[in-house]
């Protein structure tokens, strides 16, 4: 009920932008830095803000990890598509819903997801990866292939709380993609989703510290235009050898409502932001060599 919500911003503040950290002079000299400075990073839009301010969702409305594959439908919504909570069993849950407008094509997204892992030729050492920083200027630091090999995973260095903690406290994570057909989705169902235009992303994340996050999302045509993504995170689980396994080493700082809310805000802000700069970035850089500055 909204009569229980905690309002933590003043009227008018929701349209505010975050204060962006300054790039180093070497980074500023890279032509791509204009996408860092020219696109302000905005707070979550009014609908997201209102839902965030309701607080944690009722765990009864969450998709429990043992039913995780029920997310994979071509045309259904859950009762709660946007929220977070600690589950009674002690693991964390995040549901995220986002829509990218129709001017953001699948080709643009695929291009960026590959391109951001490549370091440009004059990228200064020790400053992270500016191509990743564009996406969330506050929290993102570095992104790339582990040992240059996609099979070994994709590493990410970021904070997740929109600048509340110092960058030096960022935790490196490695994303391990997997095929849901190895985890119980039948070939028939997989093909039906594919034929209906629904794309599945499944991975689990490990960290420099102990802990695991299981992530599943389905991206499909939004009936109201554009492309929608329904995603879920189960904090405290990983995927291994065809089974979803509880990771009991997941630290307590990841298993609390504040952490879940922070991740939710982070995800919402970066998803909104991607839609702002990607068309211009794609138009300019997709025709350049991979290592263009």
């Amino acid at each position, binding site marked *: *009920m909204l009569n229980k919500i905690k309002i933590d911003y003043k009227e008018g503040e929701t*349209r505010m932008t975050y204060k962006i950290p300054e790039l180093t002079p070497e980074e500023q000299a890279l032509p791509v830095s204009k996408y860092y400075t020219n696109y302000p990073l905005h707070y979550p839009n009014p*609908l997201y803000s209102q839902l965030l301010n*309701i607080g944690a969702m009722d765990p009864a409305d969450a998709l429990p990890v043992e039913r995780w594959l029920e997310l994979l439908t071509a*045309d259904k919504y*859950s009762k709660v*598509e*946007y929220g977070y909570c600690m589950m009674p069993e002690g693991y964390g849950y995040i549901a995220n819903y986002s829509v990218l407008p129709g001017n953001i094509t699948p080709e643009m997204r695929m291009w960026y997801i590959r391109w951001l892992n490549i370091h440009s030729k004059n990228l200064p050492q020790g400053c992270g990866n500016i191509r990743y920083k564009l996406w969330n200027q506050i929290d993102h630091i570095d992104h790339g292939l582990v040992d240059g090999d996609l099979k070994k995973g994709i590493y990410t260095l970021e904070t997740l709380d929109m600048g509340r903690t110092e960058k030096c406290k960022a935790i490196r994570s490695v994303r391990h993609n997997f095929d849901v057909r190895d985890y119980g989705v039948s070939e028939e169902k997989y093909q039906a989703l594919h034929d209906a235009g629904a794309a599945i992303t499944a991975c689990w994340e490990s960290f420099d510290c102990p802990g695991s996050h299981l992530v599943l999302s389905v991206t499909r045509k939004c009936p109201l235009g554009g492309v929608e993504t329904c995603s879920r995170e189960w904090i405290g689980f990983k995927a291994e050898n065809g089974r979803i396994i509880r990771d009991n080493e997941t630290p307590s700082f990841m298993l609390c409502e504040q952490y879940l809310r922070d991740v939710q805000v982070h995800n919402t802000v970066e998803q909104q932001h991607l839609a702002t700069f990607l068309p211009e970035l794609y138009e300019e850089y997709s025709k350049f060599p991979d290592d263009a500055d």
Partner: protein
Amino acid sequence: MDSYNNEGEKMIIKNTATITEAEKKLPLAKYYDIPLYSPGPLEQQIIDAGPLDPSFALRPENFLDLIHPTDYQKAEYGYCVFPEDGGGYMAVYTTYPGCTPQMLSWYFRWLNLRSKNMPEDQGNLRYKIWCPPDHWTHSFLNDKDRAGGVYSVESLDLGAGENKCEIVRHAVDPKACGLSEETEKAMKEAGCFVDCAYQTFNFPGSRLCLTVSRMTPNGIMEKISREWFGYKIENNKVVRDYTTEGITEKYMKKLLVHCTVEAQHLSAFLPQLYAEYSGLPDDAD
């Protein structure tokens, strides 16, 4: 509400209304069959959370506070009934990807005009396409512009069977009600479109309405609307109209769902409609 159910799926609202053979022959009729969807998942979650705490609502006497080129209120979406005086409140926030305030302004004039071969006594197809199960007709009372009032006939239950009601929309000039020249100038410079009116019905009562259309920081048009049920403008002041019947949370929720669905739907077809019709004569079929 039999035709509306958002539990667990992306529901296409069943259109229980039909159009005549003569209407089907009009080129515009192709817009009538575009699927109509129930509120999106974020909106539905807020609806499911129940009425807003009235302290987060914008009181009608402060309605001019909504007119701002950038700000948001604490709660941009929801409904409630004010405990102080029993008036109703509804806030709707919608984005319109691919649309501009100019397109919206064009449609809100154009839908009052009739095309040359539109059949008589069958309502106005230009209004019906906006929300097929509920909308019937829309016109300028003076056949010229909204200054003389705008007449419409609609229901709110997405075709579940309630009687359609007659509405007359009386234009309100925010400046006459106290909007500062400074704010008016800022709105113009920011390319915002403001639409303010109060409505009367074929039953006792009044409803004050205000809409601000503007571009979001992310370059998408957003429409911020409020309706205050049981209020009108008299001598440039907001007054409570205690003759207004039927102000309940259930009614305000129904109004919110209707307004959300029609706003989503307009957003879906307006760019194409504008591209096709805005360059044609006013009476094009």
